[in-house]
């Protein structure tokens, strides 16, 4: 090694200090940390909105909020949870873990990394500003649901819709830059010997997710741009009066929207595929089938979008095509589930918090997958569409799927990030209270949905009262349990737990990230490791 490199090395380990460290950061760990804290903050804001919804739905009749305000709650809850919680948390985990897992010193494009993070507070600042203005009586916040169907959002959208459009543009740019960075890192910065088929599954799932993002975020940007010109510049993309078509909005939206739901689950698949082998003390079962399954899910996700539109009056041939294509996705998804179960089979398992969350993920995500299969049966969907059954479906895949995957990942890697072991007792408390309350929250929604309770309505008929009361109790319980998580993370980060973490952290852990000391040094691998 030359002297020049030594010099750089000294320079590198010197952390910048003060606010500048965060504002101008180009360091993958600092940026990852910011992403994760941002996501955590949004999780509590979005959660508060959900509790407003559940408080209103605790009993039939109108109790706390006006229907107009209720609509703003469902809209912002959805937008914040999708774009402000799940996606930034995944990008944060990718920032932290991808360079460490592939033996790189940092991300490929560190300055762009800074940009992609700092656009997010701007985007959500704008969105949340519209809510604050609404509370202060200065006009409605976006109120058309997270799917912002035209003409609700174009002809009938409140003035704040233009805020929303700008905010979505910023989120889109942020995700695209983040994805470009992740792809460039994975393609160009792997340590010598780290071939594609040796990459950890988490890296693989993110690699594919990043391509999905690059393919569909521009389509979303196009959709909101059309909305913008329809609203302000006299075009008629979605306006029947000028020769446009509102149903076309749904096609464009779901062409983005369905791949988006896989964007929100594939990285969690990756996290689970790291955790299960570690705590089963076995290699992952069927590594290459995992990779191919992920790729085929990503591919299929582009040809199933109209399963969200079965009731828009498609011809029978279309309904059948989208029904069968959607069912097909269950095959690669099933491959993954079977592989996780086979990995655990005859393993010497232990049940630390990350593993508990991973097992809950496998079980509960599968329930969500099954309800998805029920929904994709076209004739049945005519009954289920826009009922609470759909709400139950996507909360099983998103909360007990995507979000549990993120929580599992945080517990799994927190000791590596901070150098301290988290409090296992608190972790177990967090897990058990969460897993019970989340089912009290979402399981009854299946029943009211099948019985015909529509979604996004602030009032309902009496026969749905008991199940709704149950769901509301579960919601408040689930919300407050997350404070245990927050407390545990802060306690660990501040070094207030008794146990220091070793480099390897977990007995069964394999992979480059565990060869680094804990906490991981500011720059990961300044000299590339050799992978055999």
């Amino acid at each position, binding site marked *: 090694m030359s002297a020049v490199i030594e010099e750089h090395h000294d320079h590198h380990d010197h952390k910048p200090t003060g606010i500048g460290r965060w504002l101008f950061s180009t360091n993958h760990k600092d940026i990852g940390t910011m992403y994760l804290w941002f996501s955590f903050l949004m999780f509590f804001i979005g959660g508060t909105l959900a509790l407003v919804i559940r408080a209103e739905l605790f009993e039939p009749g109108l109790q706390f909020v006006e229907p107009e305000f209720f609509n703003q709650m469902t809209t912002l809850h959805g937008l914040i949870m999708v774009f402000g919680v799940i996606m930034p948390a995944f990008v944060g985990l990718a920032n932290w873990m991808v360079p460490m897992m592939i033996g790189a010193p940092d991300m*490929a494009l560190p300055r762009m990394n800074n940009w992609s993070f700092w656009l997010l507070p701007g985007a959500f600042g704008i969105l949340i500003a519209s809510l604050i203005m609404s509370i202060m009586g200065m006009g409605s916040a976006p109120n058309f649901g997270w799917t912002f169907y035209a003409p609700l959002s174009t002809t009938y959208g409140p003035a704040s819709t233009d805020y929303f459009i700008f905010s979505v543009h910023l989120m889109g740019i942020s995700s695209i830059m983040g994805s*470009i960075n992740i792809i460039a890192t994975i393609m160009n910065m792997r340590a010598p010997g780290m071939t594609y088929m040796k990459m950890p599954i988490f890296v693989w799932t993110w690699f594919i997710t990043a391509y999905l993002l690059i393919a569909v975020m521009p*389509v979303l940007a196009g959709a909101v741009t059309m909305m913008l010109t329809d609203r302000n510049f006299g075009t008629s993309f979605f306006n*029947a009066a000028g020769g446009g078509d509102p149903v076309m909005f749904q096609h*464009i939206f779901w062409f983005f929207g369905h791949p988006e739901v896989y964007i929100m689950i594939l990285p969690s698949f990756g996290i689970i595929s790291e955790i299960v082998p570690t705590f089963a003390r076995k290699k992952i079962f069927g590594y290459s089938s995992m990779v191919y399954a992920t790729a085929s899910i990503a591919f299929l996700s582009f040809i199933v979008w109209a399963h969200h539109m079965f009731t828009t009056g498609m011809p029978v041939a279309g309904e059948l095509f989208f029904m069968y294509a959607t069912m097909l996705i269950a095959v690669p998804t099933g491959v993954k589930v079977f592989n996780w179960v086979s990995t655990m089979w005859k393993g010497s398992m232990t049940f630390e918090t990350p593993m508990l969350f991973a097992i809950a993920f496998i079980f509960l995500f599968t329930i969500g997958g099954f309800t998805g299969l029920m929904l994709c049966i076209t004739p049945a969907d005519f009954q289920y569409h826009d009922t609470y059954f759909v709400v139950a479906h996507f909360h099983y895949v998103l909360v007990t799927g995507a979000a549990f995957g993120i929580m599992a990942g945080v517990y799994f890697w927190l000791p590596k990030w901070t150098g301290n072991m988290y409090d296992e007792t608190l972790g177990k408390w967090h897990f058990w209270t969460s897993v019970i309350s989340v089912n009290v929250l979402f399981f009854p929604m299946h029943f009211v949905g099948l019985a015909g309770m529509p979604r996004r309505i602030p009032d309902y008929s009496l026969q749905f009262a008991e199940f709704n009361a149950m769901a509301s109790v579960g919601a408040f319980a689930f919300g407050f349990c997350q404070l245990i998580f927050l407390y545990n993370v802060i306690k660990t980060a501040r070094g207030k737990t008794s146990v220091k973490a070793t480099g390897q952290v977990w007995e069964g852990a394999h992979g480059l990230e565990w060869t680094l000391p804990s906490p991981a040094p500011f720059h990961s691998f300044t000299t590339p490791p050799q992978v055999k």
Partner: protein
Amino acid sequence: MTAQPDNNHSGGDDNKKVVTRLMFIVIGMFAFGFALVPIYDVFCDITGLNGKTQGQVSFSEQPKVDMTREVHIQFVASLNESMPWEFHPMTKTVTVHPGESMKIEYLARNMTDHAIIGNAVPSVAPGLAAPYFQKTECFCFTEQKLEAGEEKRMPVVFVVDPELPEDVETLTLSYTFFIKPGSETITTSALHP
């Protein structure tokens, strides 16, 4: 560029290449989002989905009239909620033989004290029969302007294609009148400066 240490194992050139390629995908997909608009229309046109009727049809020779068959045509009128006109068909139903040319009329009256330009959007049910419903003359081909208080009879001349699938016995033709986007504000301000 400042003297930033090269973090990259394989050099910045590779990054540039990757970024450029990916930017092509990004721009391409943004364009594709907009391309979906014409693709959607073409697709609906070819397949006749969506109940969209075709534009003006002109025949070089009159199709043969199929006297053995009768098709019932129902006429429906509706107004977009912000449209302050009165609008209804003069005839509610007619029975025609496929291939036979038929003329009916709609009536529109502007109920306000200012001129309004409207666009009528036609649609045919069942949607899959839409391509067989051919209009040779229609008030929906152009904008319609009604002065304050003006009343107008608007003709539609159509032919049902003899190729119409056997199982279709009734067709419904529906028009919705919309205010031409932006036109009301222009005409009002022109009338009351």
